[in-house]
């Protein structure tokens, strides 16, 4: 009886997965990731606002974002300070014009920073496997206006970040929100660069 019961369950499960996989026109996480992976180069302007509990007003910064598939991501902040952050493979280089300092980190030495930057890069690359290594992902919305919600799995990351929301349309990302565990949050809106 027990065997019979579980076999029925298994068959049901197989049918269910088959049904999902067979749906031809359905837009889902797999499609979104495939679409994102098609993009080989993306450029945009960003405006970032940080709402911090210790400050009475948000901190605002702006600059440009460049993504080159599969693993290069550049964030150049132009105001209020010239600062750049370049991620290439497993190296993260931070350079500040103001302090004239340049630091290169190996991501595997700094797991939290790695998880942090990977939320954006893996989304841009459509690398679902890597995203799922660090986050529990849910997809909301539809192809024209979607939102990925990433919740960190690692306890150390959970101490810092409670949720990351990445919003977009088709294969383009237009907003990234970080919700910090202490209640602070930052919102980055990205507009396509007009060449």
């Amino acid at each position, binding site marked *: 009886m027990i065997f019979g019961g579980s076999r029925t369950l298994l068959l049901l499960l197989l049918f269910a997965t088959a049904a999902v996989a067979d749906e031809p026109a359905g837009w889902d996480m797999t499609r979104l990731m495939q679409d994102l992976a098609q993009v080989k180069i993306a450029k945009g302007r960003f405006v970032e606002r940080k709402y911090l*509990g210790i400050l*009475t007003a948000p901190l605002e*910064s702006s600059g440009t974002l460049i993504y080159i598939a599969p693993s290069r991501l550049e964030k150049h902040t132009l105001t209020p*300070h010239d600062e750049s952050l370049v991620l290439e493979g497993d190296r993260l280089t*931070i350079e500040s014009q*103001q302090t004239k300092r340049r630091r290169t980190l190996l991501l595997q*030495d700094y797991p939290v920073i790695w998880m942090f930057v990977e939320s954006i890069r893996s989304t841009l690359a459509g690398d679902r496997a890597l995203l799922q290594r660090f986050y529990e992902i849910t997809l909301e919305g539809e192809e024209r206006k979607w939102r990925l919600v990433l919740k960190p799995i690692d306890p150390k990351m959970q101490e810092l970040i409670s949720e990351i929301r990445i919003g977009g349309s088709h294969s383009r990302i237009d907003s990234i929100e*970080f919700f910090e565990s202490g209640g602070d949050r*930052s919102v980055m809106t990205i507009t396509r660069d007009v060449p």
Partner: protein
Amino acid sequence: MTAAQRWCSAAWLVFVVASIAVVARTTFTTDISAFLPRSPTPEQRILVEQLREGVVSRLVLIGIEGGSPEALARASKQMAAELRKHETFVSVDNGDDAGSAGDREFLWRNRYLLSSAVTPERFSAPALRERLEENLRLLGSPAGALVRRIVPSDPSGELLQILERFEGQARPATRDGVWFSRDSRRALLLAQTRAAGYDIDAQERSLALVRSAFAQAGAGDAKLLLSGPGVFSVSTRASIRHDAMRFSLIATALIAGLLLAIYRSPRLLGLGLLPIGSGAVAGIAAVSLGFGAVHGITLGFGVTLIGECVDYAIYLFTQAAPGVAPQRALDRIWPTLRLGVLTSICGFSAMLFSGFSGLAQLGLFSITGLVVAVAVTRWVLPAWLPPRFTAPVVASIGPWVTAVVRRAPVLRYPLLLGVALVAVMLAAHKGPLWSDDLASLSPVSRADQMLDQQMRRDIGAPDVRFLVVIHAQEEETALQASEAIGEMLRRASLAGLLEGYDSPSDYFPSRQSQLARQRALPAAEELRANLGRALQGLPFRPQVFEPFLKDAAAAKRMPLIDRGSLQRTRFALRLDTLLVPRESGWVAMLPLREVKDAAGVARDISAPPGARAVLLDLKHESDQLYRTYRAEALTYSLLGAAAIVLLLFASLRSPRRVFDVLAPLAAAVLATTGLLSLGGHPLSIFHLVGLLLVVAIGSNYSLFFDRQAPSGSDRERTIVSLLFANATSVIGFGLLAFSRVPVLHDIGMTVATGTILTLAFSAILGRRDGRA
């Protein structure tokens, strides 16, 4: 047996029993540093001491490889948790939070005492304003998420200031929360044992714990790699024990077989082994009395003594002619035998004065062994020999050997030509003939040394080449001097002379500095007022900095950092390495990173009053140390050789005969050096000692060849006895050449080659007239 002979036998028995009693109470050591030179300068003494018992000597580097990174990380965590339960280890680090949480806590709690930026000006309103604006910038930067939490408690940025000091230090890579090699193939742990590195028994127990923890961790097919000074001492002791035991047994068996084959008499076999046994026991007893303990390698060397001492019995047995009492035969060869023993002693006494206590032990052991063996042969053995004894083997192979020897001089000119060629070759030798590397003396194999270096690099404990060594009477003075010199080094690094440095005062500032920093913090009300002024017009919420005001007020009254405060941190280990108590005060060490201009750095540093400071180049020092000892070994060898020449002149009283005795020896030494250098490896001090032994042992052969032989049959017996004597020496030393311990291997190789050549050359260069 005459009354005199009985007395001799009785005296011998008493002597052997007494020696055995001493040996029974002897302690045996395998401390590697016996084969490190005794250090002549205070700096070098610090190094050797550190090698013996310093923190460095207590480190065990542990690697786990052969598995998925996840599996290796799991095994690393389990092993660390298991090992931390044991008192045997002071600390076990694998990069997990168990270690670093303590570090963070310590730095955070003591930030106002540790930060060298804490000065009265730092907490004035304008300075605070500047720091707050910088904080705003940081909050907006990518690092914002990381600094946001500490800003309310540390707006002046003392923690960042401290962390920046440590930034240049090598750090192991991490993966899955634990240390890994850069290629993620090997998980790494670093354990520190409570026992000193020279306590090999304790080290062995610690390693057994590590192995069982690894077995419990169930890492599947993964392999455990161990390295570090303790690991090396344990494995060296094991290989010395193994080699000493194995080669002694094999040599004894082979030589016993040879004696049995030659003399066909169990009684003679027993008698032949008597001088060896007596000599070995007396040798060990002498070393025990002279040095307080006997080194394992000295015992290993006992093997060679077997080959050497058995010669005397062989001379006695083989020289016994039909119809002549053994005592008479012995009386005939005694002058030559005595001279041979004396030349051997001259050779070995050069070792007695060696700076390596290990070699000095070998010298004493050999001299005592030889003297006792020859005395037993001279005064005890003849009484026990059958009265009409003669060795049948002489009759069977004698004529054949004599024929060969008679024709040998044909090779005289080819030999001289060959030796001349070798001399030319050695003179034109490209590359170093003698090794300049102290590591050539290390009993640790090259492969193990490579593994050790690699694991050290991965774990961020690289070998340091340059360090500033500071001596002072008091710990406090040493720390103050470290701070003063640290400041000079900081300026030198800004000028590009070096990349950075590490200092004990980074973890443990002097009391003077700590008190000055406490005084530099303004009183609570003043600080509040300064902060209020600094905050005007900035977007920080009021009340945000209450934690800062509270912490600063507490820091002003908190107890100063002492060694105890560091206990639960990984800095304790670092401090114990960098700040060391000595009989005459304290020594602080500041390792330098990436020195580009050593002379410039040396010029820039000077110790404040009450302290002395020197810039030490470890590579240079250890090379220097080695060169000094090689020069010393060479000097003593030459003195030994000179003593042998003088002795020969005094005994033979004929320059011509001295030349005849020395010519084969000189040719053999040259040819042996040539053969050894053919391999392309530079020669070590141990090869040099081996050459000395070739002279000491080989002189016996050339002396016997040179001896006036009264008759043809007497000469025949002499030659056969030399052949057997040489065979036993080659067996004894030749076996050592198979040892993995460099000192045994190098000496064995050299002596086995050299003695064969000496015998052959003695025959070739021997004169054709009445002498053999």
